[in-house]
């Protein structure tokens, strides 16, 4: 008994765990916000061009993303250095764009299926040939609303 009392007198009491729920909730909220912003990891270089006459893409649930650009360093040995298309998390050919759009569209709620926008996130060093092929594919599946995603900035900086 003497041993017990001696210990209790000298040591600090146990740290209260009353705030543990708060910390857990905080972490939960934090991760909730973080995970919604992250889309898919980029496999291609994606430096967007600048433009001034831009409109914001509101409502993320109505947007389908297509990434185009040169494969990043680690994929260059497999996929080469020519600009490629990235759909979701993998590289794709031009002729897969149409079916990708249709599949994405089918995943969206019925009422949104007619108001979808395709956001083209294209690296500024890509050539228009590939973009034209994508545009043709989009026309074929009737996904006519496109948004050339850009950064805000002087458009003439693109030319350097």
């Amino acid at each position, binding site marked *: 008994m003497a041993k017990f009392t001696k210990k209790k007198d000298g040591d600090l009491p146990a740290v209260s765990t009353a705030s543990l729920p*708060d910390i857990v909730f905080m972490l939960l*909220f934090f991760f909730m916000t973080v995970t919604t912003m992250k889309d898919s990891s980029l496999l291609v270089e994606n430096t967007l061009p600048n433009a001034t006459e831009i409109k914001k893409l509101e409502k993320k649930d109505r947007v389908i993303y297509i990434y185009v650009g040169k494969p990043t360093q680690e994929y260059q040995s497999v996929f080469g250095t020519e600009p490629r298309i990235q759909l979701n998390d993998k590289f794709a050919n031009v002729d897969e764009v149409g079916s990708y759009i249709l599949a994405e569209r089918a995943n969206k709620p019925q009422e949104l299926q007619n108001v979808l926008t395709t956001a083209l996130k294209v690296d500024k060093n890509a050539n*228009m040939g590939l973009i*034209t092929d994508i*545009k043709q594919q989009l*026309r074929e599946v009737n996904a006519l609303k496109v*948004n050339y995603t850009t950064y805000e900035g002087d458009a003439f900086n693109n030319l350097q």
Partner: protein
Amino acid sequence: MPRRKGAPEVNAGSMADIAFLLLIFFLVTTTIETDAGLDRMLPPIEPPEEDVIIKQKNIFTVNINKNGQLLVEDELMNLKNLRNAATAFLENNADGSCNYCKGRKDAASSDNPTKAIISLKNDRETKYSTYITVQNELVGAYNDLRNREAQRLYNQDFTKMEAEYLNPETPSAVRDDLKDKVKRIQDMFPQKLSEAETSTN
């Protein structure tokens, strides 16, 4: 019971406050990035039922070659001058039916803004950045004209009105009011920017 008295518990009452402080800090600092860009409509794949005959003078052709040079109305042009050239073309008002235009009424240029069409063609090897710059300048020409008219009629910029109209956080009463105004300005200078299929050579 002597142990209670011996060492008082650390007060954890403010722990929740600290947690909330951190939570609010993260909420404020992590801006959920909204993308922005140039909105465009692609032409439908089915050709229109009847052929529309458009006078050559109502078409403003812009060609971009693979070196990023511009051929505007069969003349080489610097990209910096494109916006002004497009603006002049759009509000040229050759037939005099547009009473808000300030154009030169050149008989060889467009009849009125509702008939004026800008046709953009590019080469397969044109760089995307050049293409975006040209698109930006052409949309900019429309926006300049629309802003001017919106300033005259409603004392504010069209781009601002449109952004507010499209913003889902704007109250619906304000949106309804803006809808007619935005529509009116859009009809004054309808955006007719045609993107023909790319030339192969």
